[in-house]
């Protein structure tokens, strides 16, 4: 018997599922710094999502439309309820609100260019309206946020729609944050703040609380803008049934509903990962609220939070949304997290695809920064073209699916076109589990 054979068998080292390496690293980081982790992006944990739904496609009982021959309309009109000038978009994919400050002026310009070329709208953010984005955006939605940075009646009147932001999916109930590194002279001036300080945006509006006040606030904004433009109300996904109903009651033309995967420029990681509902779980309750009020399609629903492909667009619409909004995906199309910057991501202690320290303003791709040298790396014309291409591809993908399901308009997609791959997705989206006619909680099934 040699030495080796005499050794007692060892257990293999087992990592704890509870105290995993990322968790332990975070404990050490917290212990060293005394501050919570702040980052950009949306929830990274896996939650039930559009990937857990499939389309059924046509069969004997439904016939498909010819892929390249038969028309499948993609247009959408937003703000038909009260606005004199509703917005008409060629495609139902809009660009979500992202602030100048969080993003460079070049990035904002690129978003405007790409959206306009694709026939859709873009949205300002927590920092006011810049000339770059107004100039390059055919249709621009102006956000009305708790911080009211840069808010003024002239910009309100030159906006094509107003979006009252109550919350965001990444941080429902939370305010905004822009760390000192990103408060350049221009950002400071637009926000009426000293340069270089950490800037906190309030978590709720300074001059209204609750749905009754909101109704009066909407009245005021309509009076200031002569009832011309649509007024959207944006909420983070938490209580989608009631929030949608209350927004309708308060007089919204459009409800924007943002699930927990939705991106943010900078928020505490603990907030991003632990607060809010997955996008998939938000849509049906919101649609039900609209239906209960007889307002489905009359008040339009825009869904956001983790929309990446034409399939996601089609699924959101099949569940009842009128349109979707994208943030993170648009930034990736511009060039965010591109492998060509890998060497620089490594220097920042991260890697392509994982870079989320957007708040630090050192973005190698020049998108989430105010550093003039980094920002100059992004060519707004080229980046705008990439965004346009991407929007076109998503639209084509959604059309492909809609035609295969026999629909000549994306709005004709319906829940009956879908099945669910998992019990969770079936329950949240109220879509039958694949191969069955059942989903958990389905009324009348005894479950």
């Amino acid at each position, binding site marked *: 018997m040699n030495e080796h054979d005499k050794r007692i068998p060892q257990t293999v080292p087992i990592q704890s599922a509870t105290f995993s390496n990322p968790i332990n690293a975070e404990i050490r980081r917290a212990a060293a710094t005394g501050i919570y982790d702040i980052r950009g992006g949306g929830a990274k944990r896996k939650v039930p999502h559009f990937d857990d739904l499939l389309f059924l496609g046509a069969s004997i009982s439904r016939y498909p439309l010819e892929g390249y021959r038969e028309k499948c309309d993609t247009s959408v009109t937003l703000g038909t309820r009260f606005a004199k000038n509703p917005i008409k978009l060629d495609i139902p994919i809009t660009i979500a609100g992202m602030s100048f400050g969080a993003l460079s002026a070049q990035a904002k310009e690129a978003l405007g260019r790409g959206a306009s070329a694709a026939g859709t709208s873009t949205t300002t953010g927590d920092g006011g309206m810049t000339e770059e984005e107004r100039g390059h955006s055919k249709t621009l939605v102006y956000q009305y946020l708790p911080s009211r940075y840069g808010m003024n009646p002239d910009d*309100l009147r030159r906006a094509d729609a107003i979006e009252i932001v109550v919350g965001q999916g990444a941080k429902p109930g939370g305010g905004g944050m822009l760390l000192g590194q990103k408060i350049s002279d221009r950002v400071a001036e637009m926000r009426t703040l000293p340069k270089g300080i950490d800037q906190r945006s309030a978590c709720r509006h300074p*001059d209204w609380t609750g749905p009754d*006040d909101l109704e009066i606030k909407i*009245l005021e904004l309509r009076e200031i803008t002569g009832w011309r433009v649509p007024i959207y109300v944006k909420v983070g996904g938490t209580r989608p049934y009631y929030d949608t109903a209350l927004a309708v009651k308060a007089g919204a033309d459009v409800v924007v509903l943002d699930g927990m995967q939705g991106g943010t420029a900078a928020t505490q990681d603990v907030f991003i990962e632990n607060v809010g509902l997955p996008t998939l779980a938000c849509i049906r309750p919101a649609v039900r609220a609209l239906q209960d009020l007889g307002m489905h399609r009359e008040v339009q629903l825009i869904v956001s939070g983790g929309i990446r492909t034409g399939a996601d667009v089609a699924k959101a619409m099949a569940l009842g949304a009128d349109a979707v909004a994208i943030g993170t995906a648009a930034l990736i199309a511009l060039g965010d997290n591109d492998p060509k910057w890998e060497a620089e991501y490594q220097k920042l202690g991260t890697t392509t695809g994982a870079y989320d320290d957007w708040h630090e303003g050192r973005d190698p791709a020049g998108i989430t920064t105010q550093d003039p040298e980094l920002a100059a790396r992004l060519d707004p014309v080229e980046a705008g073209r990439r965004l346009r291409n991407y929007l076109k591809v998503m639209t084509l993908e959604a059309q492909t699916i809609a035609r295969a399901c026999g629909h000549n308009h994306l709005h004709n997609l319906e829940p009956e076109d879908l099945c669910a791959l998992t019990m969770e997705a079936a329950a949240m989206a109220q879509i039958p589990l694949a191969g069955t006619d059942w989903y958990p909680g389905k009324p009348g099934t005894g479950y």
Partner: protein
Amino acid sequence: MQKIDLATQTLREMNATLQAQKDQTNATQWDIENPRGAHAIAVGLDAPIEVTVRGSTGYYCAGMNKQATVHVTGSAGPGVAENMMSGTVIIDGDASQYAGATGRGGLLVIKGNAASRCGISMKGIDIVVQGNIGHMSAFMGQAGNLVVCGDAGDALGDSLYEARLFVRGSVKSLGADCVEKEVRPEHLEILRDLLERAGIDAKPEEFRRYGSARKLYNFDVDNAAAY
């Protein structure tokens, strides 16, 4: 003098008429009768006109005002002169919560008292209150001056940025990061000017000044208790 009677005309007609006035208008004097607490009276104005509201108003009277002088002879509901850009708003009576919220310019004069959150998130507006103000006033105030001839409630100037606060009477408590500061000659000058423009007879020397300690401007774990 032009008259608009809200007993017979709609809010929309009134605002549209006032908003249509241009810089060179000859119709500079407007009387609004029977406001009866209506919301959003005289909002979004942008001409050097004088509007007198004969009575009391609801929410957001004179919201986002530019250039115009709006005079309310009664009291004003929440958010009077919210986000005002320029011009003057005068309230003869009391003002409810959030008076002058997020205002970026111009002068708001409240002859009575103002409720809580007066000057919340103020961004350059000047506010002069002849009476007292409620709690959490000037919360996150970024710029401008808040002058209070009476007393201030709890948590004055909480999380203050660069707005200047002047109080003649007592301050129930100061909010996080708000401290009393020395009154220097330039502050007496600001006070003299604002009191005079507000038509209030008070001596600048009687006021104390409060401002930001600037300790919360960049996160420091040793200040965590204040967050």
